[in-house]
């Protein structure tokens, strides 16, 4: 086996905050020191950016078998094409991972079909129906990296509070997509002027903010961690900022869709813009970007949610929400954040690789000697157009179809092995 040396590139390591032109050596599945290199194959990456594989905290695929839509095979190929080496699968799967046997079954599927690391979350409540706790300790033993009922949230405060307390005994991260259903059950769009005009039921900011506050209060009182998924409201950003200033162990992520788009996009009832939580107003979008840049929001999660074309091609209020986003998440985030005065590549990679790997405690986020060789090569000058039907994902529900981007992932190494046919 040969050592591989990526030579001439700009190597960015968010874990050491280094951004420098140097050579990067790896052998088998580990990054090695140049002095240990033997029998080296040099790959010229001059002009390219090299960084650790991205880590995603919020990926959905709904149906494990995929039917005629996304499955583990296609999802992981899409993820690799987007620069990801680890994705965390949410539990809204069929079958639903609320017991060890199902988790074992799903993990076998993953082992068979995945070309990158796929980590599974378990349900927080049985069947994710919010009524009774799932066997969290057994789920942890079966290999889940976190528990969550995403894309819903337990509505019963007692259940949620006890779940957080019980999970902390196993040091098992809790992920919550904050949503008070009593205020948003019929909500198909942000409760603002546009939904009002369009006659769509509103999903107000307070439906999110009340549950953000719930998570903060529980985290504070139990002195334990809670991760909030897919924050969308400017008020949530304020609440999290205050909580972090007081030392509360709360973390949060935001989706690229919410960094890039606002409610004005839904004016034509295009269901590809329907997301949970909904796209909100410009003020929210600005707060979310600033929240990332000032450390309030920890990371960017894809919220990849493939939906069959015919399922999206229905009345707006009846259409499932979701965006297929693994192949565009990096470009969209780069596009939105690079205009910010505080933007650096180190920051972006903290949001998309280092922080998520810390939150769920998986390997990744760095390129130090001894680290796993999950490496992305990115060509910053390559121009390309995203056409969903030509992508790796088997789902086409994207608001970014035919978008033109500058910069592209041209190779992803997973455990030292190159993914094929990315470009």
């Amino acid at each position, binding site marked *: 086996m040969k050592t591989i040396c990526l030579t001439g590139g700009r190597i960015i390591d968010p874990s050491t905050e280094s951004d420098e032109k140097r050579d990067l050596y790896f052998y088998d599945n580990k990054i090695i020191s140049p002095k240990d290199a033997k029998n080296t194959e040099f790959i010229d990456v001059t002009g390219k950016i090299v960084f650790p594989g991205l880590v995603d905290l919020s990926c959905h695929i709904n149906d494990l078998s995929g039917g005629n839509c996304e499955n583990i095979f296609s999802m992981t190929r899409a993820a690799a094409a987007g620069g990801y080496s680890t994705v965390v699968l949410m539990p809204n799967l069929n079958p639903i991972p609320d017991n060890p046997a199902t988790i074992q079954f799903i993990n076998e599927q993953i082992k068979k079909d995945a070309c990158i690391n796929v980590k599974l979350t378990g349900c927080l409540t049985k069947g994710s129906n919010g009524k009774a706790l799932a066997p969290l300790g057994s789920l942890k033993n079966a290999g889940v990296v976190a528990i969550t009922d995403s894309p819903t949230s337990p509505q019963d405060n007692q259940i949620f509070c006890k779940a957080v307390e019980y999970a902390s005994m196993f040091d098992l991260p809790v992920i919550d997509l904050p949503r008070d259903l009593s205020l948003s059950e019929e909500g198909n769009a942000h409760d603002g002027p546009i939904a009002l005009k369009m*006659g769509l039921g509103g999903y107000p900011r307070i439906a999110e903010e009340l549950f953000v506050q719930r998570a903060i209060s529980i985290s504070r009182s139990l002195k334990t961690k809670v991760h909030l998924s897919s924050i969308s409201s400017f008020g949530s950003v304020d609440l999290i900022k205050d909580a972090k200033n007081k030392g509360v162990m709360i973390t949060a992520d935001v989706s690229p869709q919410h960094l890039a788009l606002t409610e004005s996009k839904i004016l034509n009832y295009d269901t590809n813009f329907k997301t949970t939580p909904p796209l909100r107003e410009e003020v929210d979008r600005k707060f979310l970007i600033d929240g990332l840049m000032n450390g309030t929001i920890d990371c960017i999660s894809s919220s990849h949610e493939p939906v069959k074309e015919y399922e999206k091609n229905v009345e707006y209020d009846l259409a499932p929400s979701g965006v297929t986003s693994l192949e565009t998440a990096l470009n969209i985030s780069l596009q939105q954040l690079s205009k910010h005065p505080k933007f650096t590549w180190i920051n972006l990679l903290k949001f998309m690789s280092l922080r998520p790997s810390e939150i769920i405690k998986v390997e990744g986020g760095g390129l130090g000697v001894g680290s796993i060789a999950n490496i992305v090569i990115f060509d910053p000058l390559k121009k390309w157009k995203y056409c969903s039907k030509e992508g790796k994902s088997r789902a086409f529900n994207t608001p970014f179809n035919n978008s033109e981007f500058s910069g592209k992932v041209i190779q992803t190494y997973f455990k030292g092995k190159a993914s094929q046919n990315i470009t």
Partner: protein
Amino acid sequence: MGIPKWKTKNLLGIESLSKIEIRKVLSLAKKLKHESPENQSYLAGKRIVNLFMEPSTRTRIAFELAAKTLHADVISIAEKSSSLTKGETLRDTALNIQALGADAIVLRHSSPGSPLLLSRIIDVPIINAGDGAHEHPSQALLDVYTLEEKIGPLDGKKITILGDILFSRVARSNFWALSKMGAKVTLAGPSTLVPKSFESMGAIVSHDLKESLADADAVMLLRIQHERQSSSHFPSLEEYTRIFGLNKYRSKWLKNDAVILHPGPINRGVEIDSELADSANSVILDQVTNGVAIRMAILCLCTLSYNK
């Protein structure tokens, strides 16, 4: 009589129409209303399909009568008698109706935006007969027609729409139509059913009944759709009547010759006193009659501007 040109084959809502287009519908409706029925075979040989996925009495019958008067063949489909109960999607139902040779589809549906969805999929004209809480353009056009008939040009007139605005497609379409015709439109009712954010559309919002009715030239009452709302929007129908119901005493706040409109169905004794609904100021039945002429005009404009 010549049928004027119409820029699009569809009627999806009032928001996208110009004042000139609204005037075109009103003028044609006026001609059709006063023309002898024997000469009205404008749509002879055309097939109009009424696809009504929600209960409707007035609108469905008015569209049927309008089409029959114009000598069109009319087929009415209700949700319960269609394949939608067998799981067929709206898209597939509409594609089938098109394949069967329809010349226009009149759609009533509970989902906002559903007529727009269909118009993207199929070629035949789509006429929106009410889509969720979004728009009900034919109702707004017949209301403007009736108002002009009764109180003259609407420019500068104060018109109040009172009741459940939040869940009402009639309120939205009427707001667009009346304000395009130059009226000053006030949306009134309890704060939970008339949120302040309606001001972003350019409406005046009032939660004070006296203020909203003062010197109004017309008031349009909307039914309280108690079957749609959870109890959280207002405490009870009794309380609604006490605070916002229109009765004889409160009607004196209006201008003397002000007219009272209601798109129906009326809940007598709730949003309006029974006596008032039958009074000389009430134009409720004129609305219904004018509804046929307006729908004749709409069917002519949309269907005849469409070339297969």
